Each structure stands twice: as C-alpha cells, then as structure tokens.
C-alpha cells in the first residue's frame, strides 16, 4: 500500500512539474523573450487561463502526501521551514502578479507586475530544484524523525548541511535552465511572430546549459546517494527511465531544428518525466533519505494506516478521472496560439 501511494504521489508531483513547470518557465524567460507591453501581455495570456489549475497540482499533491505519509509531511515540512516560507511568499507574489497585471493600463503598474512575475518565477524554479537536491542528498534526520536545516551553513556536505550547499545549488541551476527550456518551448508553441521566435531561441540556448548540468548533477548524484546505484543494480529494468530522459532530451533539440513546436514541447515533457521517475526510482524505498541511512523515512515507516489508504484509492481514482476531464476540456477550449491583438483577451473570444 505504501509503494502504491509512493507512486501515486510521484505521479501528482510529476504532473505539477510538467504543468506548472511550463508557466514557471514562461515567467523565468518573460522579460527575455517579450520586450514590449503587448508582447508581454501575450506571454501572460499563454498561461492566464491555466496557471491556477496547474498550481492546484501542488496543493493536491501536498494534500495527498499529507494523508498518505503524515510522518514525512510533518518531518519534511518542518525541516524545510525557511525555504517553504520563502516559496509561499513567492507563490503569493507570482499569483498576484498574473491576476492583477491587466487590471490597470498604466506605464508603471504593468511593468512592475511583469518584473514581480519574472523574478518570483525564476526564484521558485531555483528553490524547487534545490528542494529536490535536498531530498536526493539526504537531510540530517535523527532518531526522533525530525530535522531542521538553516538556509545555508558552509555550503559543504558535512554533518550540518543547510538547504543550500554546492550540490543543491547545482540542482537549483539545473532546474532553472530546464524550466526555461520547457517554458520557452511552451511560449514558442502558443505565440506568433517575434515572441515565438525568441522563445524558441532561448529554449535552444537553455538546452546546452541543461546538457552540461544534467551530466554534472547526475555524476554527483551517483557519488552522493549510493541507493541510486544499488537500485539500478537490483532492478536493471529501471534503466529505461534515464534512457527515456536522454532520448527525449535529444529529441528536444532535433524537433527544435525541424521547427516542430508541438513535438519539441512534448519531448521536453518526456525529459522531465524521465528525470523525475529516475530520481524517484533511485531513492525508493526511501521517501526522505537521511544523512545517516538508519534514520531515513521510508514508504513503510512514514505511511498512514492501511484502511485509510485503501479508502483513499477509491476516491483518488474517481477524482483523477474528473480532473482529466476538466483539464482536457479547458486545454482544448484554449487550444491554439494566443491572439496578437489585445481586444480579444488572449483566446480569440
């Protein structure tokens, strides 16, 4: 039961990264690809009707994590107290910026929110990456099942780690570059003309950065987290996951050259899926590895009682069917490129 919910939570987190990932990425390249007010309105319009729904995946994944692995939720969220508070503030700023930007047509109101949107998206990408880095590296859990990490200590991987050290910063940079690529491909797909062209170029440049960072971080991960090698050794079928990541990553560049915007974006989705499943596969059965492996939280010692988890399976499946229907409906309704004229706010209405 623990393993099933481990997979289901992983699916929800992956959905969050794929979906909110493109709108975070769109934010992180916002000021780079769109120069005029009108171009920036187009970038915001590509995510306007969907960003809120995308972010719900974070809340829903959080809620599901809470109910399936209460001990992990308690330990992880209190241990990552400071970065999570900062993430919350960034989410508040970002949501406010997207929603309020178009309320007033003023030469200082709009650029202000554009900048807030850009900066909060960029920092969120880095923080989410660093958080993932912390999970892979392991945290200083002790026998009580708790830990507390300050934002940083000496940036080394000793006994007293901070949220930010050289490894987690590298993962943060990788996440930022990867999301810039992902967001660039999304904006390219959803806009016309100069914005679309610039977004494609940014994605293409970010691709090279992602290439380097993926190699560096993957190498470091094998050294830092022995469980990863052990898992791939035990279940060689798992190699299919990193292979998916590598193949789809190559496909991103290939499709960019062929100017197939849709396939390039889908390949990027597959890259994220491959990377995330590789990580999840690599740390299993741990849900939160400890620096001292004896204290790690696992699918067994962090899960809730089986009765609740079984009941949960029923409503979770029903809920996800409904969610799929909503998302297919909304994305189809807002399908196609956003309009270049402001009279029809974004969606050709």
């Amino acid at each position, binding site marked *: 039961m623990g393993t099933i919910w481990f997979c289901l939570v992983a699916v929800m987190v992956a959905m969050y990264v794929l979906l909110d990932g493109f709108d975070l990425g769109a934010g992180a390249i916002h000021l780079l690809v769109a120069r005029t007010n009108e171009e920036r309105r187009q970038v915001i319009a590509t995510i306007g009707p969907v960003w809120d729904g995308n972010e*719900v995946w974070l809340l829903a994944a*959080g809620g599901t994590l*809470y109910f399936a692995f209460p001990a992990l939720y*308690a330990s992880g969220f209190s241990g990552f107290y*400071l970065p999570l508070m900062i993430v919350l503030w960034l989410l508040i700023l970002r949501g406010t910026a997207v929603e309020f930007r178009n*309320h007033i047509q003023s030469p200082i109101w709009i650029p202000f929110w554009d900048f807030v949107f850009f900066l909060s998206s960029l920092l969120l990408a880095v923080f989410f990456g660093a958080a993932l880095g912390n999970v892979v590296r392991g945290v200083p859990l002790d026998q009580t099942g*708790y830990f507390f990490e300050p934002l940083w200590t000496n940036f080394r991987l000793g006994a007293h780690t901070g949220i930010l050290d050289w490894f987690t910063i590298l993962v943060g940079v990788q996440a930022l570059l990867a999301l810039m690529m992902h967001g660039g491909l999304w904006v390219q797909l959803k806009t016309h003309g100069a914005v679309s062209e610039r977004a494609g170029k940014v994605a293409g440049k970010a691709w090279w950065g992602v290439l380097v960072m993926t190699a560096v971080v993957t190498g470091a991960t094998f050294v830092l987290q022995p469980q990863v090698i052990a898992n791939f050794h035990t279940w060689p079928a798992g190699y299919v996951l990193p292979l998916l990541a590598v193949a789809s990553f190559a496909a991103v560049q290939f499709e960019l050259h062929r100017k197939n915007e849709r396939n390039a974006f889908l390949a990027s989705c597959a890259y994220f899926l491959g990377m995330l499943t590789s990580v999840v596969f690599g740390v299993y059965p741990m849900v939160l590895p400890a620096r001292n492996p004896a204290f790690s939280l696992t699918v067994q010692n962090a899960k*809730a009682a089986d009765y609740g988890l079984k009941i949960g399976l029923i409503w979770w499946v029903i809920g996800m069917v409904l969610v799929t229907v*909503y998302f297919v409906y909304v994305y189809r*309704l807002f399908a196609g490129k956003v309009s270049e004229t402001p009279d029809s706010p974004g969606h050709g209405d």
Partner: protein
Amino acid sequence: MGSALDVHRLHFAFTVTYHYLFPQLTMGLALLLVILKTLALRTGDEHYNRAARFWAKIFGINFALGVVTGIPMEFQFGTNWAEFSKAAGGVIGQTLAMEGVFSFFLESSFLGLFLYGEKRLGRIGHWWAAFFVFLGSWMSGYLIVATNAWMQHPTGYRLNASGGIELASYWRLILNPWALWQYAHNMLGAVQTGCFVMAAVGAFYLLTKRDLRYGRTFVRLGVIVGVIAALLQLVPTGDFQGKMIAENQPATLAAMEGLFVSQEGAPLAILGQPDVEKRRLDNPLELPRMLSFLTYEHWSAHVQGLDAIPVNQWPDKIELLYYSYHVMVGLGTIFIAVMALSVFLLWRNKLFESRWMLWILMLSAPLPYIANTAGWMTAELGRQPWLIYGLLRTIHGASPRVGAGNVWFSLLGFMGMYTVLSILWLFLVYREIERGPEPENAQHAGETPLAAD
C-alpha cells in the same frame, strides 16, 4: 517551548483569520451569482447578466487573494504543526486531500471559463460554469469544516497499539454530526457576508444617485437572501451548535458565557467583563434563567460553571473567548434586525427611498466580516487547551525543531505581505465599484489618478 508555541499559535491565527476574509465573500457571492444567472436565464433580461458580470469582476479579485492566502494554510500543518500532522494526518489528511482533488480542480477549471468564456459557452453553458464554481467553493468549505469538526469532536478514529491515531470509519469522519451543523452555520455566515456586501454596494449607488436600477437589484437581492440567512443563522444552526458544545465541551460553554459558578436557572450574560482571577463577571447585564432555558429547554436546568471543571482543562484565553462569542451573537442579532427591517420596508415599497436605512446598509458591510471572524475565534479558542479535543493538547502539537526566531521571521513576513495585499484589494475593488456595472457608459471610465502611485 512556551514562547515558540505562542508564536506558532499567533502565526496560524493571523494567517487563517486573514485568509478567511476572502473565502467568506467568495462563497457568499458564488451563491448570489448563481441566483443572478438564474434570474437572467428565467427572465431573459440582460440586466441580470450585466449585474452578474459586474460581481464576477469583484469575485475574481477576491478569489485570487483567497487562493494565494490559502496555500500557506495547508503548508502550515506541516511546517508549524508537525507533531499534530504526524498524529492526525492519517485521518484529516483524507478531507484535506479530497479538498484539493475534488474542489480546487473544479473551482480553478471553471472559474477561468466563468470569467473569460461567457461568449464561447453560451447562456446555458455559462450558467453551468457559475454553478460549478459555486459547487467547488461550497464543497471546499465542507471539507475544511469537516476537518475542523474532527478536531472539535473526533469521530471515526481508533488508537493503534503504539497510541497513534488511525482512521477507522471513513463515513463517520465525513458525516460527523458536528460537521453538518458547523457547516450550515458557517455557510450562512458566508452568505450574510455576500448579502451585506452586495446590499452595501447597492445602497451606495442609490445614495449617490447613480446606476439606480443596479442599486435596487443589489439591495433587493441582498436583503431578501440576507434575512433568510440571518434567521437560519440563529435558529436552528446556532442553537444546535450551542447544544453540541454544552454536551461535548462543557468547559467551553462555561467560558464562552462567562459562567464561573455552576447553578440551576443560570442567567445569560448580555454584557459584562470577565475577571478570571477573581472568577466573576464584572458589571453583568443578565437575562435571568435564560442560559438554562436555551441550553436545556428548561428554566431551572443545572448548567456547569467553570468551578466544576479542573483549571488545567479550562480554555487558556477565557477573556478573548468570552468576547468573541458575545461579539458574534451580538452582531448576529443586529443582522436579523437590519435585514428584517429592510425587508419590511421593501415590502411596503419604501426601502429605496429610506435614505437612513440605505445608510445603515452601506455602513454595515464590514460587520459580517467581524462576526464571522469572531465566530471562528469562538470555535478555535473554545477548543483550547486541546488541538484535537480530548486527544492531543495544543502544547504537544507544534513542530519540535522550529524555534521562535524562525517563526517570528515568517510571521513578520506574512504581516508585511498581507498589508500589501489588503491595500491592493481595497484599491482594486473600490475601483470596480466606482466604475460600476456599465463602465462603457460611465462618465469617468478612464484611469484614476491613484493608478500612478
């Protein structure tokens, strides 16, 4: 531990109180929007569609702030209340996760359609979009109230061999009798916020002699729905809540009422200041025997006072609890009077000319916010010293490793950020009201000078 615990409590109290300023209007307006859309559909009168579009703009601003201030609530269960989460997550995680999966996706998907898709969806489709937004927000309300109700009155759980709390019956968690009454009471409070705000905007238009037809529609809808909600708020929902508290949380009832001494034929305190140290109510203005009657339907029934309860089981903020409860009940009574009088004048065809009544309606807009806040403070302070009533004390619920310094850091951060959000809300909502339901016809539809600040 003491000082960190206090900051954790203040942190949650501040963020949740602030957050709930938005959902109460969202949930109340969602119902009123469905009514407006229904009227438009039934009468075929475009006036109601325009009215709905006007309120949809305010709804959108309010909803956005409800979302961004709501995300920290779910996080805080883990960040600030780790021991509580570890103990209870297997039970109340059910309702919280269901809220995300069933309500938030529904709301967020259909809100976009409701706000931007009117032309594309057509008349019937747009009504459904409004209905699904309403359904999502009201379902979300239920799942949150059910979570709180479990903390007030735990049902459907068992203790396992190691003393941990486990879910034993899903349906007893979901259909907790406490949740049903608390939900009804809570939603009526939200409806009253929606009604008072709508009526206040209508009264503002009538008093300033602009958008008269809209002003009359808003006032009429606000007071008709408002009087129903105000009455149901008292009886049966408030009444039953009181009886549940008397039965299950006797210490809470005694503290709420400022009843220090157990007695037969207990009086109901209308005014007075509790002196907890001397264990008495100063300057009491009381209705004799009323508390006994209201609680047990018997004029000389015995009511437990605080003296019958060990001090370590007393709520720890008795004064605040007493005032919260009295503010809630006092305002609730005023709401019935205001709404009933308005409906009476409406029936006599005098309401729209009675400027004094319109003044009262306009100035009353902040009051339901205060009453709803006081109501939740009564529920939360009343549950003390328990976090989960009878199972887990608040002192054992906080995150063991998160020190006071870190909690102050984030609390101050939230205070600063929420100050900015308050200014934005006031500014943007006032701007929509000022532009009115027909901005294309308004004399000054351009930018307000404030926009340049």
